[in-house]
């Protein structure tokens, strides 16, 4: 830390503050009148010109040849010394959050949760419609509008393109939600499974319930909300458990960037 006492006291207006002047008022009034003359009368411009000149002259006289200042009380030109600070002792502060789940736990949780959710969703397809491919094809409807017009028979068969797309959507979404769990679970540190396994799925299901007609009309045609909620709970419990069981790491909040990055630097600290 640099000691402020080492810095030169080159502070403007150290010994005085600017003297009041009517120059800016008259200059502003004159300039405004000159603009107003464009929509009124030439005489207004003339009056404005006179006012502006008078104002700028008064302004200039306040600055040249030397700036006119009002003097300050004795001693005002000496900067106030910094307080006598005590050296850093035992760590007395906790920077919150002091520790957090590592992001890799979120990625692992997202993958594990994605498997659980897929099991439930595929189970629904198998039990209710006799096909494991239906939920997969429906998921791809987020990006492929033609899925909305496809028949149930078509959607119940294996479609390589839709399968690849659905896998991609599922993977990316699960990883992102896993990362989200990493940063949100510490908000309920004592009950991570309620946060991850109940609260999260309820909010997400509610949001999709309201918007699924726009986001994925094909899914809206076939969706079973109890099963859907069940798949979200499966994801939330698995992901939440994986994340919350991971060992927390120190956030090192408050430390300089180089220390947080583990970079060594020379020189005097």
């Amino acid at each position, binding site marked *: *830390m*640099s000691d*402020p*006492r080492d*810095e030169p*006291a080159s*502070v*403007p*207006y*150290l*010994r*005085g*503050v*600017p*003297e*009041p*002047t*009517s*120059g*800016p*008022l008259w*200059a*502003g*009034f004159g*300039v*405004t009148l000159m*603009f*107003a003359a*464009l*929509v009124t009368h030439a005489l207004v411009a003339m009056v404005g010109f006179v006012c502006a000149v008078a104002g700028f002259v008064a*302004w200039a006289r*306040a*600055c040249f*040849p*030397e*700036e*006119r*200042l*009002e*003097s*300050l*009380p004795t*001693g*005002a030109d000496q*900067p*106030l*010394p*910094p*307080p*006598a*600070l*005590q050296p*850093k002792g035992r760590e*007395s*502060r906790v*920077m*919150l959050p002091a520790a957090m789940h590592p992001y890799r736990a979120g990625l692992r949780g997202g993958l594990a949760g994605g498997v659980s959710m897929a099991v439930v969703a595929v189970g629904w397809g198998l039990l209710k419609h006799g096909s494991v491919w239906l939920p997969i094809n429906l998921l791809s409807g987020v990006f492929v509008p033609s899925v909305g017009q496809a028949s149930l028979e078509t959607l119940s068969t294996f479609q390589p393109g839709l399968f690849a797309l659905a896998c991609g959507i599922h993977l990316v979404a699960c990883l992102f939600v896993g990362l989200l769990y990493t940063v949100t679970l510490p*908000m309920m540190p004592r009950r991570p499974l309620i946060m991850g396994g109940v609260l999260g799925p309820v909010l997400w299901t509610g949001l999709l319930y309201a918007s699924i007609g726009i986001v994925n009309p094909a899914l809206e045609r076939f969706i079973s909300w109890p099963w859907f909620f069940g798949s979200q709970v499966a994801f939330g419990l698995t992901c939440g458990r994986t994340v919350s069981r991971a060992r927390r790491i120190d956030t090192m909040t*408050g430390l*300089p960037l180089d220390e947080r990055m583990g970079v060594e630097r020379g020189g005097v600290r």
Partner: protein
Amino acid sequence: MSTLHAPSHTAAGTSLLERLHGWAITVDHKRLGIMYVVAALLFFVVGGLEAAAMRLQLIKPMNDFLTPQGFNQMFTMHGTTMVFLVGMPMLAGFGNFLVPLMIGARDMAFPRLNAFGFWLFLLGGLLLYFSWIGGDGLYGAGGAPDVGWFAYSPLTSKTFSRGNSTDYWILGIMVSGFGSLSAAINFVTTILCMRCPGMTLMRMPLMVWMMLVVGFLVLVALPVLTAAQVMLLLDRSLGAHFFDPQQAGSALLWQHLFWFFGHPEVYILILPGFGFVSEIVPVFSRKVIFGYTLMVAATVGIGFISLGVWAHHMFVVGLPPWLNALFAASTFLISVPTGIKIFNWIATMWGGRIRFDTPMLYCTGFLGMFVIGGLTGIMLAAVPFTTQLSDSYFVVGHFHYVLFGGLVFAILGAVTYWFPKATGRMMDEGLGRWSFWLILLGFNLVFLPMHFSGMLGMPRRIYTYQPDRGWEMWNLVTTAGVPVQMLGVAVFVWNMIRSSLKGPVAGDDPWDAWTLEWATSSPPPEHNFDRIPTCTSARPLWDRKHPDDPDCHYE
């Protein structure tokens, strides 16, 4: 070099005339700041009355409270007043009052230019309002401007806008704009050159960072508007054809030029609001601001990105799809740094010992309302969505949630927070709470239904509507909210007047805050600090109060 004189006592004279003279010739940044804020509040009342007149007209279908032309004048003057004569001067006022105090300086870098800027703003505003009297020109064709606050071409051509009203709009805003430019030059120079010993850039209060970025934004964006207005003036007065499509000009050129100013203007308005919240929330949460460095980075990021989003106001004019996609993407992008700020404010409150005094109430209201406005903004960044709802009341609802729910709530919180510093007296807490809840209720009654009437297809700027459109109830609720809101504002203004006369004495640091403005007396002396302070961390006053556990050990 300078010449020292004994202090003149004009400013501290005893008679009313002497005191008024003292205010008129002052170059003191604090007095100019207060004059900016008071003038802006007066224009706020005028702009509010114009809005109330519009709402009365729309309370029921086929109403005839206003004529069609009168309605056009009302929405033009309302928008122009609120943006140019309320928002910008209010922020210039707070910046003027606070920046030198926060960085431990004695005044702004150019005090006389500062006073010149204030008078230009005020006189420019009065010139604009003089149009009610002088706008007829030779044609007898209307008083105040009636072309909307963004004055699209070719509506502004002589063919469609007879008389002088549009010229008054151009000239009033231009003169006022010169004032804003001089304020911006002052902010940038003062912040970069006049910080007290020890105050590095990364120790500046976030409010000061916001004003620095705002200063740069004004310097980049506002000259473009001024240039466009000069071109329009040439079109109207000297027969030029910059914006005349029939003479090889381009009406779209005006839109590009206007919005190149217009969208950064939104951030010019809201960034100081962010600054207020960033100062108030930590003090009332009793915690350091969360992620100071990231807040600074987000502010600078917003400043840069805001210069590249202007064409999202033009999604329905027929730009190429790739250009629409580009501006949609940049608009989505700006939500990232804005979101960072929201998260950081919440993280600052999280786990803090929150005191819900009136300033904090306003900041909490700001958070809720601004998030709604931000989310509808993200919706409008999607081109297909805007194609459906462009120029509808949905858009009106959206930007009022940003500029009223965001900016005005932040300003009211800021007024309550720094009132003791400016006047030496506390505002009444009970009246403050009443005003907050009334304004919050009235605000939501007025602007929430606009989203629904907009989605039902109600276009903005229509002076009346047929009774069979399904808009009646929403308009009735919207208008019903106006008196509630006005009552809230009236309570707030009454609280200010009453407290400035009879409020309890505040003391130097009534909120137990940490920035330098609280290190001097309330109100501060003309020279701000008896001795220039030295800064040891981003919370210099904390360090002075707690030398056993100073912040500088953790920077």
